[in-house]
């Protein structure tokens, strides 16, 4: 791929990966407005660092790395306090059944209680099925630290289920 992005190439990347980035950002930020901001930030950064993309590899890992960093930046902008309020709005708007909403609130509350870095490693490990080595590369952190974060995240979550392993 050339050093600068052509319209068609960039548009194709946006069309192909915006849904993936949104889903990833939403799972980390637990808020649709913030996830949309993270998607915009991600693709602005993708365009600006287009020349650093390795044409020999799938852009998914590269975009995932940028998306994780963008989500972290959005999270730091202190706009992550609207999650529960928004979820209740969603229930009213979409007619989602009450038990389903309650279990989603439970899942969101439990995940929301984790620090964002722990939530990120859990999402990457259990949902994205990334290895510790891959997470280490994506988050620019040493693998042993990622293992520690994973361990702490699991411990924090397991405590919510009535004790430690």
């Amino acid at each position, binding site marked *: 791929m050339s050093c*600068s*992005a*052509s*319209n068609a190439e*960039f*548009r194709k990347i*946006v*069309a192909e990966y*915006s*849904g993936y980035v*949104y*889903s990833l950002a*939403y*799972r980390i930020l*637990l808020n*649709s407005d913030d996830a*949309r901001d993270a*998607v*915009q930030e991600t*693709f*602005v950064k993708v*365009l*600006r*660092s287009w020349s650093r993309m390795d044409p020999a590899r799938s852009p998914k890992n590269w975009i995932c790395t940028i998306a994780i960093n963008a989500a972290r930046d959005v999270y730091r902008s202190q*706009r992550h306090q*609207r999650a529960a309020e928004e*979820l209740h709005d*969603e229930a009213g708007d979409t007619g989602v059944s009450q038990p389903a909403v309650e*279990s*989603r609130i*439970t*899942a*969101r509350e*439990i*995940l929301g209680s984790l620090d964002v870095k722990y939530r990120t490693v*859990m*999402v990457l490990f*259990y*949902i994205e099925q990334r290895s510790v080595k891959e997470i280490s590369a994506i988050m*620019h952190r040493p693998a042993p630290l990622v293992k520690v974060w994973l361990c702490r995240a*699991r411990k924090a*979550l*397991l405590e919510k*289920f*009535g*004790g430690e*392993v």
Partner: protein
Amino acid sequence: MRCEHAQKFFDEMVASGPGSARRDVLSHVQSCPACSDAFRRWSSMVAIVRFAPAPEAPAHLVSEVLTAVAERELDRAPRRWPAAAPLWAGVLVVAVVVAGGAGWIAQRRATPVESSFAVAPRDSSWASMDPRCAGQLRATMADARAHGLPSRLLEQSVREAIAEGLSDSLVVASVRARSAHLLALAQNSGGRLPRDCEERLPAMESRSAGAASTTVPTASAAATANQPAADVDPAGGRQSRLDEKAAQRQDALDRRTEKLDRKLDRAEKRGDRNR
């Protein structure tokens, strides 16, 4: 087998099912009540993580992203990458085409699409503006975005002001006034704009326009354009001095915003280099 050793295989057992586990691990987990309970909780934990809500991406996400990218890159163009201007122009053309489609969709939706504002009319209007006023308008819009205010309502204010035939400085003033009103609404509603903010805006604007025939934004616009304040403020006196002070404060804020913007750019550059 020890419990600690068996528990190292929990992730594998959850991922591939207990049946796929090593025989000694499985037999230990089945026979040890502590490990059996721990495995049950481990499975619940993994289920919770996988159950994390992930709604479908909004239908207009792609157009929203393209529009936002084009707008932000054009804002940066004169300062950082003048050589790549054709690229941004191309992205803008794509964004305009896509935004046109999004606008068509938005007309059929109860909630208007945030990103479907008319990029082309906005830019063509700005093109004829005094460069200094256009810069102030951009700074105001950037400031509003930083506060989480919707660009669409400010764009609408620009269009209305231009349609009324107001001078460039008054266009800037009207946008600043709307930004201030939106900020006030958001502050009164606990940091988030109320759903009926669009209905409440005209009343707020007419109230502020009617108050003593001078408003802070109007006067600030007059000061910005270096016009005599009396032209805009026939009442003169104390109100004019207050207006001048407000304009000075606004100018100081603009300068500070630009300074912060430059600082942010430098930090980003450093970050890019480090990476």
